[in-house]
Each structure stands twice: as C-alpha cells, then as structure tokens.
C-alpha cells in the first residue's frame, strides 16, 4: 500500500486512528501488527510470506542471543550472531544484487529473480540492528512475538524507513506514552510530508525527467545544472517527505522516531551533510559497521580502510549499480579530504561560502547517483562544466529556467529552516486566530496534496483516433 494514495490517506489512516483509540492499551500492539500485515498484503501478498519468515527467523535468533549473552557463552553467541547477520544479508543480496553480481563477474542471466519485496533494504537492516543490540546487551530481546513482529513490520516505516535502532524502538513497543496531543503533532508531520512528496517532489520529478530525455550531446551548461538541481531537490523532497510521513505516523501511534533529515542543504561541510541527510542510515552504518571495525580509534591507515568499507557499502545499499559505488567513493574522497587535508583551512572560510560549496558538491554527487551508467554520468558532468554541448545558456536552458525556475526557487527556500521556524513561531501562539491560520494552512496542504494525488492518475489516454 502506498502512503501517498487515496486508500491510505482517506480510508486506512483514519480508520487506524479511530480503531487505535478505541482499543484497550494491552492489545494495541496486536492491532498495529494486524494493520501492518494488511498494509503489506494489500499490494503484494507474496511479500507477507517473506517478511513472515524473516520475522520468525530473527525472533528466535534474538531470543537465542539473549539466552547466550545471559549465560556468557561468548563464542556461541558470536557464531549465532554471525549466522543471523549472514542470513539477513543473504536475503538482501539475493533479491537486490544477485543479477548485478552475476553480470559483474561476466555471467549472463537467463532466469528471473522474483520482484524485490517491499522495504527489503529497510527491514533486513532493522533485523540486523536487533540482533546486534541484543547480542551486545544494549537491549533485551522482545519476548512477545507480536511485539517483535511489530518492530519489523510497522506500516509507517516498512516501505522506506527510517531504520529505527532496535534499542530505541523496543522500549517504546513495550511501553509508550500515548496522548491525543501526539495524534495532532503526528498528523501535522504527515500532512507536511505528503505535500512535500506529492506537490513539490512530483512536479520537480517531471521537470527532471524532461531534462534527462534531452539529447546529452548538445546539452548546455545551464540545462545540465538545472537538471541536476531539479533532481537534487526532488530527491530531498521525496525522501524527506516520506520520512516526515513515517515519523508522523509513528507519532500518531505513540512512537517517537528521531528525525531522518535535518535541512541537509544548509550543511557547511560534507561531514555536516552526512549528519543531516538520511540520518538513520548513517547511524546504522556507524553503529553496526564502522564502530565494530574499530571506528576512528585505530591507526590512520586502518581508519581509512574502515571508512572505505562503510562508503562502498553505503553506495551499494542504494542500488545494484556501479554508479552507486562510485557515488559512495566520491563522498568518501570528499570526507577524507575534509578530515585530513582541509580541516583548518575550512574554518577560515565564511559559513555561507562553505554552505554554497557543500551544496554544489552534493549536487555533483547526485548526478552520478541518477545516471544509469558511469559513462552517462561522465558525459553529464562534462556538460555541467562546459565541455562539449552547446555553450553556457541556449534556448533549451532558458526554457527550463522559465518553466521550472519558480518551483526551483520555492523548493530551495523550503529546504532551509526559514519556513519551519516561521511556522513554529506562529504555532506557539495560543490565540484562536493563530490556530485558525495554522489549521487553514494545513487544510490547504491536505487539499492541495489531494489534487496532485488524484490528477497524477489522470491517464494520458489518447483517443483511439490518434
């Protein structure tokens, strides 16, 4: 089920909220689990089997790890943990990377691997987080299978995260503070996320796809940059919108997930960028890959190796393509340069200039990210810097500038904390007039999102006569 379509917004969500409020606290987790299973089955019942198997396997593995940890059987615990991580990784690799791996080592594939199940990159990472946290003693395993199943499958986060750490969520699954006020706050976040995704990201996406369909060999510098900017902002609005919705849904049902995006495009360094972009993924790699490898408390050489492992994996996590690996390495290179070469130099540069260059570097990274292959990415980057193509600004560039300029400016302003701080200042006022304004604004966002939700399905069906 998609969070941005009619059934979820107009039926599933209000019904879930009402049912949840009417259900006794003891069985609320069971209710959320049932809703989550229905949510998964709605689009692809086959995924239910796979997710079910993953739940059963990880539930028992976590219990076993808990047992071994209490009994202080370290070697057995390590063995079980390794098996558990290997099994989850194998599942992910099979569905997501199998064909890519075979192609990479020169084996043509003549059979089809089943469709990638929804949220596999997210729920396998959640499961690994659970196994590690239980094994380390950060958090005891969830004894109640309903609770554990809910941790893996909660409908707010199953499709696109955030990857909530087991130790953070398990406590909340056992007991959480539920107030009507949290529904209010959760719905606000949900509506903001919905409109970010449907209104802004959807429109930017159309512009980006139009630019990408242009002939690359004759692309001007302006067109190439506009395309890259459309994509960079689309990706931000799409993913952060999604995260807002997921966190909002969590809040509605009493969970408190930490934020996944924190205005990444006002970062003043790449290190800062990765503290603000897809925070939960960065935290996962930090906690379950980087630190276990020794983190930064090792020799400089070893530290660089550790970082390389993290960034190759981060790249690959985004998809089975060499472009993602290159994108990961690009960020690795920038981070290393920042960390080891430019640390003191950067401090002398005014913050605004650092923000500008960090943004530009991130945009360049996204061009590698959105390219279908390395050679396309290379040609696209050449166009961005004026090699080949048709000059600085041609009529195609002017066309996209007039056609997408306003939206782009809106999106850039919206990516800064300006609007949010203005909004929260009005929101804090107790007066009825202020509350009425805020409510009207959210109603407008909800109705606007509905317009895009409905009209995006207006089919481009041409008459039979054409």
């Amino acid at each position, binding site marked *: *089920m998609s969070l941005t*379509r*009619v*059934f979820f*917004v*107009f*039926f599933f*969500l*209000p019904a879930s*909220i009402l049912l949840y409020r009417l259900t006794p606290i003891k069985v609320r987790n069971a209710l959320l689990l049932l809703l989550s299973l229905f949510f998964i*089955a*709605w*689009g692809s*019942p086959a995924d239910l089997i796979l997710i079910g198997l993953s739940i059963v396997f990880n539930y028992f593995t976590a219990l076993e790890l808990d047992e071994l940890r209490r009994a202080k059987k370290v070697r057995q615990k390590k063995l079980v943990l390794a098996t558990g991580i290997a099994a989850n990784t194998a599942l992910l690799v099979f569905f997501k990377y199998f064909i890519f791996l075979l192609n990479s080592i020169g084996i043509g594939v003549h059979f089809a691997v089943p469709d990638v199940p929804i949220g596999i990159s997210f729920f396998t990472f959640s499961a690994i987080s659970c196994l590690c946290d239980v094994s380390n003693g950060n958090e005891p395993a969830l004894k109640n299978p309903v609770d554990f199943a809910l941790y893996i499958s909660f409908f707010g986060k199953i499709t696109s995260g955030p990857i909530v750490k087991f130790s953070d969520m398990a406590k909340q699954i056992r007991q959480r*503070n*539920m*107030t*009507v*006020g949290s*529904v*209010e706050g959760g*719905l606000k976040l949900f*509506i903001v996320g919905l409109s970010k995704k449907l*209104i802004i990201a959807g*429109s930017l996406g*159309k*512009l980006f796809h139009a630019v990408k369909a242009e002939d690359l060999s004759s692309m001007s510098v302006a067109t190439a940059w506009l395309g890259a900017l459309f994509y960079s902002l689309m990706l931000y609005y799409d993913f952060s919108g999604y995260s807002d919705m997921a966190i909002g849904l969590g809040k509605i049902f009493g969970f408190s997930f930490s934020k996944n995006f924190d205005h990444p495009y006002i970062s003043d360094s790449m290190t800062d960028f990765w503290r603000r972009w897809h925070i939960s993924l960065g935290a996962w790699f930090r906690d379950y890959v980087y630190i276990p490898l020794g983190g930064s408390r090792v020799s400089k050489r070893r530290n660089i190796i550790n970082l390389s492992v993290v960034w190759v994996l981060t790249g690959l996590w985004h998809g089975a393509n060499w472009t993602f690996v290159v994108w990961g390495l690009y960020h690795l290179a920038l981070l290393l340069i920042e960390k080891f070469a430019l640390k003191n130099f950067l401090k002398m540069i005014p913050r605004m200039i650092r923000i500008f260059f960090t943004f530009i570097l991130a945009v360049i990274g996204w061009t590698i990210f959105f390219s279908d292959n390395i050679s396309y990415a290379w040609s696209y980057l050449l166009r961005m810097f004026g090699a080949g193509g048709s000059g600085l600004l041609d*009529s*195609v560039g*002017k*066309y996209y500038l*007039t*056609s997408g*300029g*306003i*939206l782009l400016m*809106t999106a850039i302003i919206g990516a800064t904390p300006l609007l949010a701080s203005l909004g929260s200042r009005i929101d804090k006022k107790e007066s009825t007039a202020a*509350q009425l304004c*805020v*409510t009207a604004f*959210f*109603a407008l966002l*909800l*109705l*606007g999102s509905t*317009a*895009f*939700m*409905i*009209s*995006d*399905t*207006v*089919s*481009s*069906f041409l*008459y*039979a*006569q*054409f």
Partner: protein
Amino acid sequence: MPSNQKSPKLWITCMFMVIVICFDIIALVMPDKDFSETENRMLAQAPVASSKSITEGTLGEDAEKYLSDQFAFRDAWSNLSFFTRSMLFGQKEMNGVYIGKDGFLMLIPSEPARESLQKKLSAINAVTEKYGEINHCIAVIPNAEAIMTNKLPSYAPASKQPQQLDDISRSFRGITCCNVSELFKKHRYEELYYHTDHHWTSRGAYLAFTAIASDMQIQADDTQYDIYTVSDSFQGTLSSKSGSHGYNDTIEIYVPKGEHPISVRYSDSTETSGSIYQKDFLNTKDKYALFLGGNHPIVTITTTADTDRTLMLIKDSYANCFAQFLTPYFDQIIIVDPRYCYDSVDMLINQYEITDLLYLYNADTFMTDTSLTDFLTLESDNSEQSKE
C-alpha cells in the same frame, strides 16, 4: 492514559478527520460513473475480490485505481493541480503537451524511430513503383508545434519537424509529395489548428486541400463551400491530457455547394449514411468524431461525381475532416486506416480498381506509427520473405 494538565489542542486532528470522513461519505453515497467526459475514457469500476486477485496482489492496485477514478469532484482536483503547476509554478508543459500562449495547447511530437521510418519510406516507394499507372500523392501535415511557433511557450525548443519533413520529401521516388509547411506558416493566423485538440481545423484542412488538389490534378477552384459553425464548446484531447480547460474551440464544417449526394459505408458497421458528418457526436466530448464518426478500418464513400476516378485514401485521423473536400471529385473514395485495417494494399487496389492514391497523415503519427509499413508490405515481398 495520562491525565492532561491543559486540554490539548486538536485543531488539525479535527480538520483532518472531518475532511477525510466527508469524502468517504460522499464516496459511499455518490453513484459510480462509467465514463469521464473530460478525460474521454472509461473509469475504473469497483474491483471484484477473487482468490486470484488477492493472491496476486492485483486487488489492491485495482482498488486504488477505482478509488481515485471515482473520487468526488475528480475534474475539479485536476483543474486545481493544473492551476498550481501552470500559474503558481509556471510550468510550460504537462503530460507531453505545451501550455502555449493565449491558452494554445500543442502536442509535443515524439522522437521518430529512424529505422522504422526508413522502412516505411521504402514501403511507400515500393508501392509507387509496383502500381505505376496510378497517381500517387502524399501529404504529411506538420503539427501545430511546428507551425504555431508564435504561440509556443517562451524559449520552447525549436521544432524538428520542418527538417524532418524536408528529409522525408527528398526520399520519395515517383510520388508527388505535397509539403504544406510554408503555406501553413504564411496562414498561421487563420486558426489552422484547434487550441485544445491535436487535430487541424476544417480551415486548416481546406488550406491543405487547395495545395494537394493541384498535385492530384483536381480543379479545386470550381467548388464553393457553405461554411457552418456546428459547435463552439469543443475541448479536445490536449485539454484532457494537460488538465487545462480554459478554452473552448469552434468546429466548422465545409459543405460543397450544390447537389452532391453521397453514400457512406463503414466496414465495421452495417449502417449506411448519406453524410460524412455524424452530428450525434457533437453532444459528446469527442466532438471531432463528427467527421466520419472517428476512425474505422475502411470507409467507402460513393458519390455521383461521375469522374471515372476512384481514390484510395490511406490516412490517420487528420484525414477525417479532409474527406469533405474530396467528395465532388471522385466516384468512389476508399478511406483506409492501417491502424485498424488488416487487409493488404494489393488486395484493396485490385478490388476497387483504384486510379488515385493519397497518403494523408499528420507528422507525429506518420513518423511513429508502424502499422502503415505492415499494410503496405506487397504480396511479392511476402512470398520472398517466406522463401527465406
């Protein structure tokens, strides 16, 4: 539940619940619609749950389609999103349609597939060569995007069609090729194309006819026409595609003066009609179907012109409103739409004793459609292929 010190504010919750529940009630109460006039398509209906649709997961997708197709005030939502995109964000194209100046909507032509275009041109040349005794003529009409350049959005990329049409005309052998690009550009202020539909107007078709007629050795000046406006509330395909509904087009028909009794027969229907105009369609969304009732595999028009000439018109929908100009000059006109007709060109030429052959297409269809090549494949080619 913890007691609340202050009574919490629930404005957003109430607003959200009221809005969604209102729409849920409307959805339950309002009867489902079968057809959308604005979009000109059948709307999705309530899906039926079966064990197959549940296990394969199609039920959820079908239900989503049903819910959004039947969503209350569907047209108003699409207008609202059009308004946001074009007025607020200033976007210049929507779903493959340019939002031009003065509300002029223009189809953005698709890129032609070179190889299949080449095959098509060779197929036409082969037919011309095989049937040397017939007068062959071809007219590929540029789309509005190539002619109404003054109405394109600012800085819209220059149309590639003029160049493409030049290239096409050069590759024909033994067939008269009528390129109306220059003529149309000269007359671009005369409403040659609908503002909200991808077709040309009768006025555009008439202008092309004056040029094509001389290529076909027809004395076009002899005929005078009565021009009638039959609709002033036409919103065509481009309106539906883009979601822009701010302009109403006028449809005119050109009826040859004097007595020209005709009989029109459709290969996919048993009825015969005395006119090429099917006025019932003026009461529907699809008003352009006034001309010949839309597309059919083969339409046969029999006239009393007594000119000993029989025309085969191989065409797309642009020719539907062109037929009104041809009736005074041929005893019989066989109108073939290769997209729906599975007969071969050889069979039809021999069966009807064709004397004249006219290909009439708009550039976008001509360059992308592949059914014409299949239709033109000659019988000898087939036997050669089967030998291989």
